[in-house]
């Protein structure tokens, strides 16, 4: 793999996506060290509430213990490794292994070893057999993250400038957001980075891949816009953000100039609290949004979308979702999908938002069908040595000017038909993978790295 200065060339080997040896190394270097999204606090509101997830690809239990602390454990008995929790969700003060009965408090402490004295004698100390635990667990705006690395930086340091954008999406309501039920799980026969790079901020594919959605009127049409506020342009203005540490965002606005901030698609009764909970720059980000999406490196994507016409002509709504890509193999990904909604929105609005989401960006939505076909097709193609010998040239948008006049955090560029965010993602990927060591799997590995 070569990565060279971005003004001239930004070139990655296709083996980066489809070589099983690269995937194996990602599991260690990236998924073994980064903060990873595991769930939302609203999924486990009460002590003892748990859900089963994956941290990297390792099965884990995310549980709120009896003291209310969020904890993440390997879902495996310390004795013989059997799975402790077999369901997706539940509530329990203790986890008891079905094999020999070792029992753990939901704080992870080993509290019971069956026939302990008979089997292990008097000197055995079960305190040495607490559950294997994530190194750190923390949350921000209800989003729960964990890392296997106990020496990892704090979550706030890890998120860097991305926290500003996460607040704009997830931290703008007084009562916060809650999940719309359990996550949906789907299998995508692609590499986890395909969808991730797309959602990092690729506004370039939208007019092509999603042309049918334009023709169906799901993006606000000129007459939709004119009914809202004075229209300023034909084109929807977009910006992309390198938020540091591989995190990214894309913010695209409706081309209208309202007299005051408009959080279109949300009930107007919630607009004052959005203004109250955001600073001036975040209000600028959120007002008149067409779409906003991005990644928390490595594998969590988020999206907030304003759509028209999903419930007949004249309808409009917003929805927020989080998508987690679990990298089961180089060409096999399990995708977890959560929809989130303001807790204070009424049932009618929540149902409207759920329908808008289900028909567009939900697991069965048309956007995902068109994107998914592109992602899976790349895996279809890269099965042989010839395709894997190729490269991707990712220089799109390298000339786009800085938008630092906005005062938004991170490296913000005007224009969203770009590969700016993909480069940000891959630069961080590259740092963590220490690709010098990858020369074992490919000749001529990196000569230079921007």
């Amino acid at each position: 793999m070569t990565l060279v200065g971005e003004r001239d060339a930004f070139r990655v080997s296709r083996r980066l996506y489809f070589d099983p040896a690269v995937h194996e190394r990602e599991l260690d270097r990236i998924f073994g060290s980064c903060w990873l999204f595991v769930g939302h606090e609203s999924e486990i509101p009460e002590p003892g509430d748990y859900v089963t997830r994956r941290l990297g690809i390792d099965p884990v239990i995310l549980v709120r213990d009896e003291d209310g602390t969020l904890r993440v454990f390997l879902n495996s008995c310390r004795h013989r490794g059997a799975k402790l929790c077999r369901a997706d969700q539940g509530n329990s003060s203790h986890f008891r292994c079905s094999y020999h009965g070792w029992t753990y408090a939901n704080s992870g402490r080993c509290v019971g070893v069956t026939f302990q004295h008979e089997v292990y004698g008097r000197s055995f100390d079960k305190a040495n057999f607490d559950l294997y635990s994530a190194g750190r667990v923390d949350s921000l705006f209800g989003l729960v993250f964990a890392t296997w690395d106990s020496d990892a930086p704090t979550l706030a340091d890890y998120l860097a400038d991305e926290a500003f954008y996460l607040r704009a999406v997830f931290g703008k309501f007084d009562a916060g957001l809650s999940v719309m039920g359990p996550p949906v799980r789907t299998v995508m026969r692609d590499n986890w980075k395909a969808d991730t790079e797309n959602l990092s901020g690729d506004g370039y594919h939208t007019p092509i891949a999603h042309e049918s959605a334009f023709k169906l009127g799901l993006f606000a049409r000129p007459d939709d816009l004119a009914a809202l506020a004075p229209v300023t342009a034909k084109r929807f203005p977009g910006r992309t953000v390198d938020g540091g540490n591989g995190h990214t965002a894309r913010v695209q606005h409706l081309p209208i100039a309202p007299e005051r901030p408009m959080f279109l698609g949300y009930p107007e009764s919630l607009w004052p609290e959005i203004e109250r909970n955001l600073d001036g720059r975040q209000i600028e980000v959120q007002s008149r949004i067409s779409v906003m999406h991005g990644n928390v490196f490595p594998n969590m994507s988020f999206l907030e979308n304003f759509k028209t016409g999903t419930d007949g002509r004249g309808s409009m709504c917003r929805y927020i979702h989080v998508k987690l890509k679990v990298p089961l193999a180089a060409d096999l990904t399990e995708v977890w999908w959560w929809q989130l909604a303001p807790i204070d929105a009424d049932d009618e609005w929540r149902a409207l938002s759920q329908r808008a989401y289900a028909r567009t960006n939900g697991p069965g939505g048309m956007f995902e069908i068109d994107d998914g076909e592109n992602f899976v097709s790349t895996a279809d193609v890269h099965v042989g040595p010839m395709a894997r010998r190729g490269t991707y040239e990712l220089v799109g948008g390298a000339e786009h000017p800085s938008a630092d006049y906005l005062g938004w955090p991170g490296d913000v560029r005007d224009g969203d038909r770009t590969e700016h965010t993909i480069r940000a993602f891959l630069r961080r990927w590259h740092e963590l993978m220490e690709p010098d060591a990858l020369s074992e799997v490919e000749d001529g590995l990196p000569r230079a790295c921007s």
Partner: protein
Amino acid sequence: MTVPVPTRPAGATTGPWYPPTAEGGIAPIEVHHEVSLFLALESEAFDDRRFDAWSEMLDDSFTYRVPVPVVRDNASGPPYDPGTLLIDETKESILDIWLARYGEQLYDVAWGEHPPLRFRHHVSNVRVRTTERSGVYLARSNVLLSMVRQATDPAQLGAERHDVIGRQPEGAWALLSRYCVLDAVVLDVPQVRVML
């Protein structure tokens, strides 16, 4: 009418989600026969991609809903979340958004739809029961949807349908609603937008 939300008594680990008697008794055999034939013809129209004919079999009030599956840690809740819908459609949304992508106007740019996925509905175990409404029946059936994308191996999605089917004033049958409970929790199919 809506399909009742299934429950089991707290602590009960066996027994049906939908008590068979709650919706009335088994319909007369002639009705069973007509409804079974209707379901077969409905699948045939969809699998043939005769979407105009298929949509004419839907009542104007038609709704299609698929709740999100979930593995619970107890046996008294259903294996899905009734309040969270993976698919939530009306006849209008199916015509305007879903089927529109199969039509000539959009087909060339609805990239995920071509070459067309091939669908084959295997419908079995049809059980037709009467309801409190004259001429309206609850038909439960099992469906195995086989889907083929391009030249890949067929993928299968199993589900139980809860269809409400009624006789229209002009005598033809129509689908009033369809509520489908998926078997799989992790959905490994080429498209999750599926008409089960």
